[in-house]
């Protein structure tokens, strides 16, 4: 079983190697990429089932003892994230192949995408801070390539911002990691809690802030969010779908992991304020935009606020709500970008002024957008409602009235801006140019893209349908995460 953990990283990397060697054959690249993505997803599912039954699994790569080895740890939280992440990567890969757009035609797409997959797996499984940093770098390198695949002026411009900010982020992170090593003499996340607790409060706070700044930039929380709405919309749709769904959530994952495991006794009032501001600023930004991709990008920021709010509230109940929120948010956000991709492919634009009346042409496409959109706004009976209910009810228990007010108001404004997209792009009369094209049944023209989107949207509905067992799983995961002693006991034997 424990050999499976490294395989989740090794298989996509090996696939990237084959994909590079077969750089002249697009067909081979596709087959290799699909095989590797399927294998990674299968491994992730096996890991999550195994971990839920038998408890945390660990693997020490390199065969060295203790903290010298490259430690991989899969507890329920990381196994769940790994499963959701690799499933989304597989779905978006199929979508990109179905799109047959310029980005998938680029010979660098498949190698970079597989390296990204390996980086995502590694970041979720890393058992020490340094390897967390390394796998962040792996996925960042791949994301630089994916973001600027077509090499258009716009991509290069926003790619520059993205690269510069992420290099700064890496520098802050590696500084934090180095200082933690200097202060404690270890980077193993199982050994760190005890040693960090022995440090003076001031030093611990400083180290915590360094990590928070680094991961906060990755997760795009206020005030470190400005890079996101600038860079994501420039990328091709399948790429921005996976970035939007997954990459910022890896930052949130790192925040949850470090806050609960390494710095459990911290006053998080500041983090709560940051969470409230992140929600509000994100949704204000979204309301001001008139391009689908940009609106959706600002919503990523706003939604991150809810997850950070869960972390800031602290405790098993809040963390389990956060985990459920992440579980729901990743497929919902991905599917919104996938629908946007279909719209853009079909009409050639994602600007609301240029797209109209899509519901008249394809009711199903409108439904595919509306379900995740309402879920994102947190309307019952969709999965977003349960996520928000969880976070807000903890805030009510803790009598943090103002954050409840902010969360609910932002929820309402999320609905407003989602309806703005719906009214702009789907409602009303079709544009004259599209009427002359006379095409109805948008979905039928893009079978693979639509199939994948339908599958992901169905997945979000399934999350709502099986919310009971899933929420209980999240509670078990949150118990693992918040219980430092059990984590340490599982890793150090």
């Amino acid at each position: 079983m424990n050999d499976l953990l490294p395989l989740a990283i090794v298989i996509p990397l090996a696939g990237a190697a084959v994909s590079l060697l077969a750089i002249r054959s697009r067909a081979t690249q596709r087959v290799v990429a699909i095989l590797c993505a399927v294998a990674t997803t299968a491994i992730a599912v096996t890991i999550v089932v195994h971990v839920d039954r038998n408890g945390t699994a660990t693997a020490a790569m390199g065969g060295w003892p203790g903290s010298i080895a490259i430690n991989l740890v899969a507890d329920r939280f990381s196994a769940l994230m790994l499963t959701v992440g690799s499933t989304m990567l597989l779905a978006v890969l199929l979508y990109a192949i179905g799109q047959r757009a310029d980005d998938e035609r680029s010979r660098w797409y498949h190698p970079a995408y597989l390296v990204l997959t390996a980086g995502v797996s590694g970041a979720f499984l890393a058992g020490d801070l340094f390897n967390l940093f390394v796998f962040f770098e792996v996925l960042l390198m791949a994301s630089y390539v994916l973001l600027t695949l077509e090499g258009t002026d716009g991509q290069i411009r926003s790619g520059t911002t993205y690269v510069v900010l992420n290099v700064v982020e890496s520098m802050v992170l590696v500084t934090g990691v180095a200082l933690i090593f200097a202060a404690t003499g270890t980077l193993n996340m199982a050994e760190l809690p005890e040693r960090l607790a022995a440090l003076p409060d001031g030093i611990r706070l400083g180290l915590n802030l360094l990590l928070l700044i680094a991961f906060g930039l990755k997760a795009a929380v206020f005030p470190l969010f400005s890079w996101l709405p600038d860079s994501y919309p420039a990328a091709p749709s399948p790429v921005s779908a996976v970035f939007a769904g997954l990459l910022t959530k890896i930052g949130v994952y790192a925040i949850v992991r470090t806050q609960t495991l390494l710095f459990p006794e911290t006053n998080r009032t500041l983090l709560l304020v940051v969470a409230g501001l992140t929600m509000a600023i994100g949704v204000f930004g979204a309301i001001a935009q008139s391009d689908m991709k940009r609106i959706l990008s600002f919503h990523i920021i706003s939604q991150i606020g809810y997850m950070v709010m869960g972390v800031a509230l602290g405790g098993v109940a809040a963390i389990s709500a956060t985990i459920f929120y992440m579980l729901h948010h990743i497929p919902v956000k991905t599917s919104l970008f996938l629908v946007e991709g279909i719209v853009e492919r079909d009409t050639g634009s994602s600007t609301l002024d240029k797209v109209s009346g899509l519901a008249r042409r394809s009711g199903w496409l409108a439904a595919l957008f509306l379900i995740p959109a309402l879920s994102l706004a947190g309307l019952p009976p969709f999965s977003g409602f349960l996520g928000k209910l969880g976070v807000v009810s903890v805030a009510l228990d803790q009598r943090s009235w103002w954050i409840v007010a902010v969360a609910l108001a932002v929820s309402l404004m999320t609905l407003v801006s989602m309806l703005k997209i719906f009214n702009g792009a789907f409602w009303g009369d079709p544009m004259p140019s599209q009427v002359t094209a006379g095409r109805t049944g948008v979905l039928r023209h893009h079978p693979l893209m639509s199939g994948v989107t339908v599958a992901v949207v169905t997945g979000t509905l399934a999350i709502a349908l099986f919310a009971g067992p899933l929420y209980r799983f999240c509670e078990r995961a949150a118990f693992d995460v918040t219980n430092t002693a059990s984590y340490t006991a599982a890793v150090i034997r």
Partner: protein
Amino acid sequence: MSNLDGTRRSIILSETVNGLTPVLLLFSVFLTFRGHNAPGGGFAGGLVMAAAIILRYLGSGPAGIRSLRIDPIMLMGIGLALAIATGTSALLSGKGFLESTIWKLHPPLIGEMKIVSSSVFDIGVHILVVGVVMAILVAFVEADDEVARSRPAVKRPASDRSNDSDRSNEDSQR
């Protein structure tokens, strides 16, 4: 104005690079093999070799890179495959992923020789790093070529033209 396009090249630089290249290449191999027990390793070694290639580019222009006739993408693939294969073979033989196997040989005259499987991993990393740097370099060379091709077609502003006349003066002086 690029001085890499072959029109204005420093003889001193290119001759120095010619002399330096073998030394750098040897040093990069040395670093890679040294890395098992001391600072160094495939990444550092690969970077030194890549530096040699970049120097060659600076010294003799794009032609210096093209004369190598190596596909950097293949290098990346081979290097990554080699590194992964080393790790996986350990996994297949029942050890942990990336766990190193040590062989001790006793060839005549040399004495004991220690060969470790992790140096194959290091060689893979070395090749991969060289491949990545070369791929970036080739992208720049191609962009440079494109600029060079489009140059006569583009009408330049006046300020640029004065520069140009400088160059033609220089050329005639040669």
